[in-house]
């Protein structure tokens, strides 16, 4: 998903006067999608593999939930930072950003749904 330079943008959003590039908003939404997806993947992976589950168990009291949630939160903040730096003056197409965000969040929701992730339960 590449963006065009904001200064080259035309269309209805110019009506606002000094148009703001959409890149920073796109960055945080795609990052939210990435964080959700990572949470879904880790939830399925921990269910499927005992070694991954124990790798994510950073605290005996909290169990693997600590690793899953902190890694997915880190994925959100890091991808937000990286995408923000890359897109801060860009103007990616909003429609594509919303679609990608929806797909990533929906995959994250699927991966964290027990009836789905328990299908991957290891022996």
């Amino acid at each position: 998903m590449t963006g065009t330079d904001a200064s080259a943008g035309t269309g209805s959003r110019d009506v606002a006067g000094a148009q703001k590039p959409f890149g920073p908003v796109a960055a945080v939404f795609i990052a939210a999608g990435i964080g959700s997806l990572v949470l879904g993947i880790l939830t399925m992976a921990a269910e499927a593999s005992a070694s991954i589950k124990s790798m994510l168990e950073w605290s005996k009291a909290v169990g693997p939930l600590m690793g899953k949630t902190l890694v997915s939160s880190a994925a959100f903040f890091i991808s937000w930072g990286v995408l923000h730096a890359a897109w801060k003056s860009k103007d990616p197409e909003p429609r594509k950003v919303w679609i990608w965000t929806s797909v990533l969040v929906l995959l994250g929701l699927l991966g964290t749904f027990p009836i789905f992730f328990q299908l991957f339960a290891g022996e």
Partner: protein
Amino acid sequence: MSFTSREFWTIVHGMGLGAAFLLAFAGGLAGLWSLRPGLVTDAGVVERAKRLKIGTWTMAVAAWLTVLTGSFIVYPWYRADTTGACEESFTEACGAKYALLADSATAQWHEFGMEWKEHIAWIAPLLATAVAVAVSYYGVKLVREQGIKKVLIIAFCAAFAIAGIAGALGAFITKAAPVI
């Protein structure tokens, strides 16, 4: 009349932060919905945008604090295996998780309810933060970005719905087996 430390944190997690989240959502949604050029004056937009920032950031912060207190303070009490053999033989000293699993009539509250709640809840702060960032970024200009505003409303409602699922499951699980 007093609370134990566990009761206190359960109240902070479920009722205190939950109430803040609910109030911030209601305020934020009303603000986003009514932010239309024909409905407010220029001065009104400035005032409305400020309130909108406060509402959306309050919701985002409340969402983060709710998952942090829930996962790292309350949840360890819920899953505490105090005897080291709670899975095999449940005693009063075991966490609420084992009380649920000990009875086939309540086991699904853990196997489905808590398993869903503990994971899905973490998606709410991601979406709430994204909305708060977008609202802060556009500020008063959001009134002219009606297409973006509509998507922000959807994301805002999605964050609320996700938190609502987690909150409702939490209430039902606590009713079946309170963390005490």
